């Protein structure tokens, strides 16, 4: 029994977020956060098995064209074809293999295939804008898509979101789960976008911006961008929780 008790108590907790690298809640400049953020302080939770485990098996079937958003319809979508590659790593620099990466985005005109997006930009019959794949044993992923357009929203006067691709990633633990947005280098709308600006730390903010990559770029075919994603990982050494 004593042995069992000891065995049970040993887990490796995950690293906590560093100051300034996560968005605050609420964040006044993004108005919808005001009624949708907890008003009371969060309760600090020492990690248990429940936090450091998570869904890593079986996310259903992934079809062959799920990572090529330009081949999901009869014809080719309009816009600038791009290749987005990257690796999913944990904060210890270890690749996260078999991680499910899901993306969704607007088309080249900035319009989402969603009933709530009714702004006057054309839908593209050859573009849905959703993809998914699993990382390989090195944590690498690759999508072919088109560059999304900027789009307007109602948060403030003349509000436009910088071009972005939404990313959803499952890491090894339920608490390493990440939903983020990938932006493109040098976007002039960064300065006006409260979603992008919600990350206080400048360096952390830039980790959401992909890099142009000539190696990935293919002649006569598509520009390439690299977007590496870093998820929470375990503390270096296991320790016994009191």
């Amino acid at each position, binding site marked *: 029994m004593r042995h069992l008790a000891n065995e049970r108590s040993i887990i490796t907790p995950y690293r906590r977020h560093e100051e300034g*690298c996560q968005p605050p809640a609420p964040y006044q400049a993004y108005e919808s956060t005001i009624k949708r953020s907890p008003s009371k302080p969060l309760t600090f939770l020492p990690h248990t098995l429940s936090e*450091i485990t998570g869904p890593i098996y079986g996310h259903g079937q992934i079809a062959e064209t799920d990572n090529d958003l330009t081949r999901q319809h009869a014809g080719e979508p309009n816009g600038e074809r791009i290749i987005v590659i990257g690796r999913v790593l944990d*904060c210890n620099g270890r690749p996260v293999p078999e991680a499910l990466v899901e993306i969704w985005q607007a088309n080249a005109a900035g319009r989402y295939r969603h009933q709530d997006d009714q702004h006057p930009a054309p839908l593209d019959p050859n573009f849905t804008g959703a993809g998914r794949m699993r990382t390989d044993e090195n944590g690498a992923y690759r999508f072919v898509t088109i560059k999304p357009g900027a789009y307007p929203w109602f948060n403030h006067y003349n509000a436009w979101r910088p071009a972005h691709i939404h990313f959803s990633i499952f890491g090894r633990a339920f608490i390493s789960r990440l939903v983020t947005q990938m932006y493109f280098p040098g976007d002039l709308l960064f300065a006006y976008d409260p979603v992008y600006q919600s990350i206080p730390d400048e360096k952390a903010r830039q980790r959401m911006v992909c890099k142009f990559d000539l190696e990935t770029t293919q002649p006569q075919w598509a520009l390439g961008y690299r977007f590496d994603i870093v*998820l929470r990982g375990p503390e270096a050494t296991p320790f016994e929780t009191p």
Partner: protein
Amino acid sequence: MSLGLTPSQTVGPFFSFGLTTEKCSVRCIAGPEAKGERVLLTCRVLDGDGVGIPDAMLEIWQADAEGKYNHPDDPQEKTCDPEWRGFGRMGTREDGSCEFETIRPGRVPGPGSVLQAPHLNMAVFARGMLKQFYTRIYFSGDPANQEDPVLALVPDERRETLMAHPDPAKPGHWHFEVRMQGEHETVFFDV
């Protein structure tokens, strides 16, 4: 080596065609073959005005009926129910609600030799949330709640916000409310 983490950003208003299509949703956390007491769980997410949030996504992670997670970092010497996945994901409807089909999980180890009470782990995503919020769902009336080490961290008067309640009219049906704000604001955890 320690790399800087990629920051979180909101799922925004348009995630449903990417994350909660029929193909990508997971309503059934535990199939009919899974061992354990069947639970049909209705969850509802409410904003600071008590209005249902129609563009939220709920994800659930839980252990099987024996308290074993389907994960290599669970060191318990038990084998997982072969039918077990333990993950669910649903988008909310117009009134902020959605359902999951599952079983009441077993007790999983907590700190030291303490066992945790049966619970589901939940992450809440929505437009207007720049990051996901974590909470837990316990089963009201479960005697193990008295000795749960996580509930013990929560002040008495707020523990009730972490309880799912059985539907008196429909056996096996349970309800859980996620209140983002207000008098009965749900307890969210800093994980």
